[in-house]
């Protein structure tokens, strides 16, 4: 087994430890806590009045645009990382490539701002 695999066994162990922590706390609490169910307690909380409607609301489409923009800038950051690491060897050519890449995606952001989809009204 190499150091590399040991690293990822560590990750697995930590996920397990975190899950066990949550399970243990919830488990201990389930032994200790009281349970006095009454009908009103199981109603959805809407500031004390009886809930109106069915609790599902449609979200505005603008959230989708934010999600899309996020995907784009996430991908951008991810692509810049390897270039940043190899900056020296890739030289001027790499620099130009990367500036083109960033510029194209910046056009997208500028377009979104100019079209006003980021405005909240």
């Amino acid at each position, binding site marked *: 087994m190499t150091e590399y695999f040991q690293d990822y066994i560590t990750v697995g162990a930590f996920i397990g430890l975190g899950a066990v922590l949550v399970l243990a706390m919830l488990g201990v609490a389930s032994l200790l806590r009281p349970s006095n169910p009454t009908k009103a307690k199981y109603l959805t909380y809407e500031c004390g009045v009886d809930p109106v409607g069915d609790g599902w609301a449609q979200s505005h489409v603008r959230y989708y645009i934010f999600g899309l923009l996020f*995907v784009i800038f996430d991908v951008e950051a991810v692509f810049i990382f390897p270039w940043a690491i190899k900056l020296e060897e890739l030289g001027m050519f790499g620099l130009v490539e990367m500036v083109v890449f960033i510029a194209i995606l910046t056009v997208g952001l500028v377009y979104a701002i100019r079209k006003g989809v980021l405005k909240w009204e």
Partner: protein
Amino acid sequence: MADWISLPVNWVFLVLALVIAFAGVKVVTSRNLIHAALSLVGVLASTAALFLLLSAEFVAWVLVLVYVGAVLVLFLFGIMITRAPMGREVSLDNERRGLAAITALATFALLAGTSWVAFGDVEIEGVGDPITTGDLADSLLGRYLIPFEIVSFVLLAALIGGIALARKDRSPAEEAERTDA
């Protein structure tokens, strides 16, 4: 065969492959959109683990970051702006099931065939030291430069398409009114 069983890596692969297959089936059979999306998270996370098994660390974490962390959140937003108000159990099947099955099979045959032709009986030697991010940069900005730059155009096109769909177009009169106010 005995050789196959003695390697723990193969067992990990087997478990991951089964998880991927199971979750993949769940994605298409689940009647609840959010559950389907969560199954897709399972598929992608296990795929990331497969990449880790091939010591492609960078690709694995990019998969988690971009697909699990961004694209699927986008899916969730997509569900929130469309189906969520219609309740939980909706019938997601339609009469194009047969066609979809054929497409899926064809895609599987294509991918499996390509891998077979390309790697046939090559022994994959990825297990060991991780591939450095630097190596990745070399091929990304060298050999695969054109696809890399095209990615930026694809992303731009996706964004412009999304904006075109989401935007409410105003008449010039309305626009003038807004700037006055």
